[in-house]
């Protein structure tokens, strides 16, 4: 044993006595990941986590130049994009990684939904995941406004108005979000605080809970694979699965870099509260199916304003999604649960079709 190895060994022993490295090592080597024909979906959660970490990193970098006020926000982003070296790259990566993260999160969630990985004992893992999706949408909604451009200004007007028309607590929630009765610089400051402090703190904690639960229960094996009676196969997490995970992460990074380099984030025109809403105003793509639904609703449904029906409908839809593990009794007992497979497929089809219409339907006749 060389001198250097001996030294490393002593350092390891010193640390082990104090932090319990051997226990961690044992844990890492004991962890197994099942292998079967649906195992590809196991990589989506890790990709989402990778993109989340990218967001934290690039977000911190953006903080160094961004100024959260109606007078300076647009100009500071413009400065970042035109003067700061690689400023355009950092902002473009932040914008693209946000979109990719929502995308991988959706794919991750729907794969869990269709493979019934939420069934006992992983209900709380599902709850924490749905809550994380809510936070991700909150990140998107608040982050969209921060450059203070025209599109974001009106999208936020609509978005906060929707919050404001929630029955009973809407008025308070709307004022709470906007920091007043209108979308102004006060709204920008609030969204900034929510985007860079409140949501990251909550998301950090929930990601911790989510990962702890995934670690505690191990990867879910789909019931169909369990029922098939085929011999159980598995691979060690370290290094086999981890290295495959790394390939996934690097692929995502490559896609991200290409998107950021070839399609850098745009800035548009500065928001002006005294200009009409521009034609072609649209929210981020992941809100598009809701936006398009609101367009199709008539102004009154059974004497209630159409938008209120829509909002309450989406609220109930979200609640239903959250409670699926408790509602799906068949999957809980390991039986095939076709009803919930069809519900999952219906949700996906609805979102895809409405999103498609949102981008193709003619704005006005």
């Amino acid at each position, binding site marked *: 044993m060389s001198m250097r190895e001996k030294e490393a060994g002593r350092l390891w022993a010193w640390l082990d006595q104090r932090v319990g490295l051997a226990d961690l090592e044992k844990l890492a080597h004991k962890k197994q990941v099942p292998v079967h024909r649906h195992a590809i979906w196991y990589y989506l959660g890790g990709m989402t986590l990778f993109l989340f970490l990218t967001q934290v990193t690039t977000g911190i970098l953006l903080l160094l130049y961004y100024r959260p006020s109606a007078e300076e926000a647009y100009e500071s982003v413009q400065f970042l994009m035109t003067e700061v070296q690689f400023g355009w790259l950092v902002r473009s990566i932040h914008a693209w990684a946000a979109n990719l993260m929502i995308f991988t999160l959706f794919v991750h969630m729907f794969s869990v939904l269709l493979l019934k990985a939420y069934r006992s004992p992983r209900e709380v893992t599902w709850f924490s995941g749905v809550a994380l999706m809510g936070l991700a949408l909150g990140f998107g909604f608040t982050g969209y406004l921060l450059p203070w451009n025209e599109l974001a200004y009106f999208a936020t007007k*609509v978005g906060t108005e929707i919050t404001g028309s929630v029955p009973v607590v809407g008025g308070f929630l709307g*004022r*709470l979000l906007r*920091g007043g009765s209108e979308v102004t610089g006060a709204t920008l400051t609030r969204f900034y605080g929510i985007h860079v402090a409140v949501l990251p703190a909550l998301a950090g904690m929930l990601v911790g809970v989510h990962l702890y639960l995934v670690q505690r229960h191990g990867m879910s094996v789909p019931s169909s694979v369990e029922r098939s009676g085929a011999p159980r196969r598995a691979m060690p997490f370290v290094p086999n699965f981890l290295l495959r995970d790394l390939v996934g992460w690097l692929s995502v990074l490559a896609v991200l870099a290409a998107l950021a380099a070839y399609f850098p984030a745009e800035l548009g025109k500065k928001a002006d509260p*005294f200009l009409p809403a521009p034609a072609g*105003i649209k929210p981020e793509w992941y809100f598009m199916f809701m936006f398009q639904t609101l367009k199709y609703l008539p102004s009154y449904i059974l004497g209630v304003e159409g938008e209120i029906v829509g909002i309450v409908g989406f609220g109930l839809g979200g609640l239903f999604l959250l409670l699926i593990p408790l509602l799906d009794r068949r999957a809980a007992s390991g039986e095939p649960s076709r009803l919930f497979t069809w519900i999952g497929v219906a949700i996906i089809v609805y979102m895809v079709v409405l999103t498609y219409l949102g981008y193709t339907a003619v704005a006005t006749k």
Partner: protein
Amino acid sequence: MAEATLDPGSSRRGFINWFLGTTAGAFLLSVLYPLSRYLDPPEVGESTAGTVTLADVKPDSVKPNTGQIFKFGSRPGILIRTPAGELRAFSAVCTHLNCTVQYRSDLTQIWCACHNGHYDLNGKNVAGPPPRPLEPFSVNVRGTQIVVSKSAPA
């Protein structure tokens, strides 16, 4: 109740628990109340002036079958001249979801780009999702000045 008072140990524990519980509750309230009041933004003195004189818009500069946005206090208003030549003004805040409307000469209608809402020249919602008409203002021309006021024209 009688048992609790007979057993000095449990009544003392009960009292302490009750005391701790109410203290924790009071503490929580004393934190949550100011916090919720703090988050609720104060009413900013919104300009309640019912009348606005348009500084940079002259009656002659508004051509028939056009419209433009003006500041009515802190909110946008829309001033239109109908194809027949009449000046009209409305709140430019769409009654659907608060977007700012615009005048569409090709449709001779007021139009909201956000969700494709249409209003006619009286501000009445005629197509799309808006649930109510636009709030009408009254327009008076005094010499070369346009004066818009809140009260609806009779």
